[in-house]
């Protein structure tokens, strides 16, 4: 198995964009942070992570640059984090908007489907959140995890290699966060065979 997949971090202006880069680097990926205005044809990565960021999904999605192009034309797996997940759901015909109860800091995640992302992880663990918006409907996706105040904490697309999480696996206070990113990278590595 190739030990250094190229996985780039698309910067949507999040506080933790650099954290994603750091964890990917620790996992052993070849990684860099790229602006969300980068053209698809300029991206020589095998997988992408769409970072979170301050833009509000309902009225600021133009600030997410070319992220929808990546969903249309990028050839490899994509993991959307926070607003990255919300855009993914919206782009695939779902709905996203202000959360009934926004979550900040600690939340308990309940895993419904282990699938790829939660392989080898417990059914419940503590994660770190920071979101005003959430996914309301995600047709075409399988919901993998929920929390008390958010019905879509993690998804996988039924046909495409799209994964999304509302919580932040890249921050150190999230339990098993590195393992979740490692599981995503494993998806990329397997496809390279």
């Amino acid at each position, binding site marked *: 198995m190739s030990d250094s997949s190229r996985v780039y971090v698309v910067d949507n*202006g999040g506080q933790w*964009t650099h954290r994603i880069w750091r964890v990917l680097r620790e996992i052993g990926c070849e990684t860099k942070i790229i602006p969300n205005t980068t053209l698809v044809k300029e991206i020589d990565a095998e997988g992408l992570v769409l970072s979170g960021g301050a*833009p509000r999904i309902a009225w600021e999605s133009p600030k997410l640059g070319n992220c929808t192009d990546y969903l249309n034309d990028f050839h490899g797996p994509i993991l959307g984090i926070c607003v990255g997940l919300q855009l993914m759901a919206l782009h695939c015909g779902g709905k996203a908007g202000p959360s009934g109860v926004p979550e900040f800091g600690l939340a308990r995640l309940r895993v419904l489907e282990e699938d790829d992302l939660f392989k080898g992880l417990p059914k419940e663990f503590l994660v770190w959140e920071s979101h005003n918006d959430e996914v309301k409907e995600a047709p075409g996706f399988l919901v993998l995890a929920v929390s008390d105040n958010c019905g879509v904490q993690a998804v996988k697309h039924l046909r495409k290699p799209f994964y999304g999480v509302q919580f932040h696996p890249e921050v150190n206070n999230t339990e098993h966060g590195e393992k979740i990113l490692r599981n995503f990278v494993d998806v990329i590595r397997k496809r390279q065979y």
Partner: protein
Amino acid sequence: MFDADRFIEAAVEQLRQRIGGNAIIGVSGGVDSTVAAVLVGKAVGKNLRCVLVDTGYMRKNEVENNQAFLDSLGLNVLVVDAKGRFYEQLRGVVDPEKKRAIIGELFIRIFEEVARKEGASFFVQGTIAPDWIESGGGLRDRIKSHHNVGGLPEKIDFEIVEPLRDLYKDEVRLVGERLGLPQEIYGRQPFPGPGLAVRILSEADPESVRIVREACAIVEEEIERAVVRGEMRRPWQYFAVLLPCKTVGVHGDVRIYGSVISVRAVESLDGMSAAYSKIPHSALEAISVRITNTLKDEVSRVVFDITNKPPGTIEYE
């Protein structure tokens, strides 16, 4: 994994090529600036002058201790007493971002004055990743202006060099360890650049500094004692904040009306997210009793902050 040895080797080589001439570095005695100073010292030797600014917002005995320590590392240290200038410029200033901007600008002006005297055209800072991430820019929202990034004026006289820019605190500590610094330096808890000024949630006047400085010293001492007693682990960061409100109390049957001190202690890896520390009540009580007794004329109440980051940041301003 982060390879500190490789980082040191590459950084020293780059610094050697980049810094042609005299350089000064702003040092606080904290982990970041000390590591940066030792790194640059390795690269350019005696061409580096360390400038320790006494802002008037340092912790108890900090200026003296830091000067002695930096001297012992063989670094060339200049202490600038700027207490009066900082107090003067911050008079009447309450807005946290305004405070940070004034402090950042004054720091730079002082460094410019020193650079001119020393004939230095390079200015080194111990900026690390969270400093520029939280200072915002472009798409990224400004959470707070770190004094070494967001507080910088537009026009600056020298070239800025930031050898630790892509590192996080825990990585800087590894570099410090590999550079041979003592554990009490590379393991030191973080301390904000603007110092105690951002732990006073109103005007940062000398009297408020005296109160919060004493309260911070008590929090540090009592927590460290509890650690020695084996009651808890040392938190990532722990300090006191002077809140801008007053509450009623009673001393020997007499009404008092004094300030409130908030005790903050958090667990983190890199400061980008944090959980509040689950400090045992015995330690919290020792802190509360000592603060309300030693600062009896100023403080009538002590509270413990139970907010994670997010939503709260670690420091208050």
